[in-house]
């Protein structure tokens, strides 16, 4: 059964009613395997507050959607996802709605550790993360790619409850991304957004959303070529509502980045970039399910 996915809307931003008093440590273990022409979810185990949904689809890839109980991360939450995509398998992991991080003086953490085997594909494409007033959020994503493995990784960060005038009001945000291949680091970066370096809403100016898309490996050769040509030839205009860039990382990897004046514009752009996904997976993960 397909699950309804709820797009980011302002009315959703009410904190959970029952705020747990204890730290919640949610962990999930996922393993994907190829059986015949299809990929199956071999293991999908999750401990609260993390939950996993495995909707069927018409393609050859297996899809998993994560969600967290209570609709977001509250103070002290620590989520970990451990994931394997076996040889020749194709997996899409997304989230059921945005990841909302609430006020969290003790901090919230989220960690991904993934291994992608030869000839396999991982599409890690969650909805945006939004950190609310007083949120302290630390995220790390570690991906080990075997030779011939492919990766689509999307990361979107939005300003928070912009409609209510709450923009970039968190107290700390760190996100590290490491992509290793055969023991060598292809990407090893960390974003650190902290008001200690200046008032964040001023520093981010008119922009309400920042995003990154990473494409690595042979399954994405033609997508990379098309995107490098398209984004690489966009004119640079003053005060544009959308700023995009594309940087090649060696012969078979690409990083796309964007800043947008609205979360919707960023989501739209990132989906345009990933418009090859339905044909790659054999089904469209972005269509509204219900």
């Amino acid at each position, binding site marked *: 059964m397909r699950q309804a996915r709820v797009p980011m809307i302002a009315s959703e931003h009410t904190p959970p009613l029952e705020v747990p008093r204890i730290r919640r440590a949610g962990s999930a273990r996922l393993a994907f395997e190829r059986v015949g022409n299809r990929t199956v979810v071999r293991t999908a185990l999750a401990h609260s507050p993390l939950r996993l949904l495995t909707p069927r689809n018409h393609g050859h890839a297996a899809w998993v959607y994560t969600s967290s109980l209570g609709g977001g991360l509250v103070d002290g939450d620590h989520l970990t996802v451990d994931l394997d995509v076996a040889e020749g398998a194709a997996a899409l992991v997304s989230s059921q709605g945005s990841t909302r991080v609430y006020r969290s003086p003790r901090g919230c953490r989220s960690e991904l550790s993934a291994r992608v085997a030869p000839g396999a594909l991982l599409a890690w494409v969650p909805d945006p993360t939004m950190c609310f007033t007083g949120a302290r959020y630390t995220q790390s994503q570690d991906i080990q790619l075997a030779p011939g493995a492919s990766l689509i990784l999307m990361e979107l960060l939005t300003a928070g409850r912009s409609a209510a005038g709450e923009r970039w009001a968190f107290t700390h945000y760190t996100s590290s991304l490491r992509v290793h291949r055969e023991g060598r680091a292809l990407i*090893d970066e*960390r974003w650190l957004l902290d008001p200690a370096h*200046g008032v964040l809403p001023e520093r981010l100016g008119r922009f309400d959303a*920042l995003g990154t898309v990473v494409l690595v490996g042979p399954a994405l050769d033609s997508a990379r070529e098309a995107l490098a040509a398209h984004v690489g030839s966009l*004119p640079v205009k003053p005060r544009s509502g959308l*700023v995009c860039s594309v940087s090649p990382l060696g012969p078979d990897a690409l990083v796309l980045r*964007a*800043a947008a004046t609205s979360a919707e514009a960023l989501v739209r752009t990132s989906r345009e970039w990933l418009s090859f996904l339905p044909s790659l997976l054999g089904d469209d993960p972005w269509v509204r399910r219900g």
Partner: protein
Amino acid sequence: MGSAWRVLQLADSGFPTGGFAHSGGLEAAVQQGEVRERESLERFVRELLWQTGHGALPLLGAAWREPSTLGALDARADAFLTNHVANRASRTQGRAFLDTCARIFPGPVGPLRQAAREARVRYHHAPLFGAVLRVLDVELSDAQQLLLSLTLRGALSAAVRIGIVGTHESHQMQNRCAPLLDSVLETCAGLGVESLAQTSPLMDLLGSTHDRLYSRLFLS
């Protein structure tokens, strides 16, 4: 005491390392309308200095403490600088800095340059800067101060050439940045490579569009 004279020599704008071909992302930020006048230039410079503190000083420090790890630190810098414009600028400036120093101080820097070649490094600037200043017997704190000061001056001199501020105004601004330089140094001087961070993803993004600008005065 000999090293104090060297620091002054390295800080001299006449020291031929080609740094003036780079704007540190300023030219792209200006053409995108994000930097227009003094206030926004001050904000840009503040972003740039914190970014240097978190994104370059840890590599500089690690290379200064252990110049033999240059190869690993160079690879770390390469994986950290995913923005191709910043990555290329780091390699261009690192190579120019090493070559110039090897010519001017062949005794101490020549062997380092040879070792860097043999390690097949990509010549990223921050780790090379630390390693070169170590073999030149410059104290770590002086090396850190020098990098921050050169970064600030580079951006402000680019601002003068782009025409956002005049020469005197840019130096007044440089002077006003002293407390900020102190804060960056205090916060970042002790950071290890595990703390490397990009504190200004928006400025990084703006700078990464450099190659697509309609006209360009600078290489980055």
